């Protein structure tokens, strides 16, 4: 279980202080799929970075299974928006990186990496370099690279933001397939309402300046979801209204 307690982050500069996050409280159950939505500048990415241990809260704390998070660790995997595969490593050496730094020997870590390549149906790209792959393939590999350490939590910061709409839809279905197989808790930052409604068990809508949780929506629709179903449309409508007042607010 992941618990955020009064997580606050203030960026201090000479001219002014920015309250990126103010008293964010959230409890995430194991194996839950959470999407975080909000206008740009609402601190979604900052929140994710704090949970990953890449940034520290000014006040408050993050607890993962009762242990306080203060630095990056293998119990939390992260997938970034920009292509983060190491370009000088082959696909298999990218996936196996997490095991390599743990000191797992080559044979064993390659076996494990191959299982994930099979899961993605990308076995034949084992020895390719990232520049030889499409954007969608790179992000799928980045996802399994983060999964190989068997983290409790998978943090995803707009992972499909750089992909075209078509690929994006395919990737969402693929992510659900992986999620159902590996049963991870996922925190997924996005600014696409459609994406959130398609993926999440719960959607957290954030407000901007100071970034804080405005509203939480439970999505009880079974998977696979029909993007154009009446229920999906109704939820989208409610979320868009909630977000809309935030957008107005952010503009002022």
């Amino acid at each position: 279980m992941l618990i955020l307690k009064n997580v606050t982050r203030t960026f201090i500069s000479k001219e002014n202080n920015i309250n990126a996050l103010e008293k964010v409280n959230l409890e995430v159950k194991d194996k839950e799929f959470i999407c975080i939505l909000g206008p740009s500048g609402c601190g979604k990415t900052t929140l994710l970075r704090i949970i990953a241990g890449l940034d520290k809260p000014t006040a408050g704390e993050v607890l993962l299974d009762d242990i306080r998070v203060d630095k990056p660790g293998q119990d939390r995997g992260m997938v970034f928006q920009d292509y983060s595969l190491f370009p000088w490593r082959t696909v298999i050496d990218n996936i196996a990186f997490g095991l390599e730094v743990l000191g797992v020997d080559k044979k064993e870590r390659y076996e494990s990496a191959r299982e994930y390549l099979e899961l993605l149906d990308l076995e034949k790209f084992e020895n390719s370099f990232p520049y030889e792959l499409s954007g969608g393939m790179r992000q799928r590999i980045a996802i399994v690279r983060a999964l190989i350490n068997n983290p409790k939590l998978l943090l995803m910061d707009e992972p499909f933001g750089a992909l075209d709409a078509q690929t994006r839809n395919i990737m969402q279905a693929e992510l659900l397939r992986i999620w159902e197989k590996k049963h991870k808790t996922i925190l997924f930052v996005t600014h696409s309402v459609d994406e959130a409604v398609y993926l999440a068990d719960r959607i957290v809508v954030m407000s901007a300046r100071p970034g804080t949780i405005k509203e939480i929506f439970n999505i009880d629709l079974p998977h696979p979801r029909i993007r154009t179903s009446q229920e999906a449309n109704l939820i989208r409508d409610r979320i868009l209204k909630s977000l809309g007042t935030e957008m107005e607010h952010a503009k002022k």
Partner: protein
Amino acid sequence: MNARWTYYLVLPSFFIVIWYAVSKAQLYPAYIVPPLDMVIRSFSELVGNGTIFQHIYWSIVRVIAGFAIAAAIGIPLGISMGWSNTMMRLVEPLTNIIRQIPPIAWVPFAMIWFKAGVVESSAFIVCIGAFFPILLNTISGVKGVPVLFVESAYTLGANSRQILAKVVVPASMPNILSGLRIGLGIGWMSLVAAEMMGQDYGLGSFILNSSTVLRMDRVVVGMITIGFLGFLMDRIFKGLESSLLSWRGR
């Protein structure tokens, strides 16, 4: 022979034709523009009796020694300076002052410090010439490693030491290699100047000694040999670069 090669040969052939024409017309005395055929004759003579190879041998030994030392110090120092701000503040002012001094200015001290050595004094000059391009390129390579890669590695469980070895060094390899390539070129150029301080062998000494007896044809042979060898070393390095950095794609 494909079209690419023909392009490569256009300017050199043009140059040779002009040279030949000028020497045939006898517009200038041989010590101003040594005739082409005379240069070819002394070249084949020097190859025939093996003298030229002796000069080449010593030059190459010196350049390799100086270059290897420059790389062995420059790469680790550059990595630590690029990685740690403390190291940067500590070392940067001094290196930046020394960097402004041309390698040739070290010749008097090289002669005093290494007077007994056939290799050491010139290798020292080469080392000074090669060191700074290697150092500066390594620093900028390390500083240019995207934060995204470093953070990814942290979230995958790597510690700082592993990040240095498995992320920072490979990510800055393109800059390190181009630093080595530039360093080798500058080292080669400084070598020839350094050899003019009076060794018996070496392409620089060969040029100096030939010019004192006004054998300008031999001076030209020395110059062309230096140019060709430098070109060859650069090509070898370029090949090394593209095979080591095949992960960059085209």
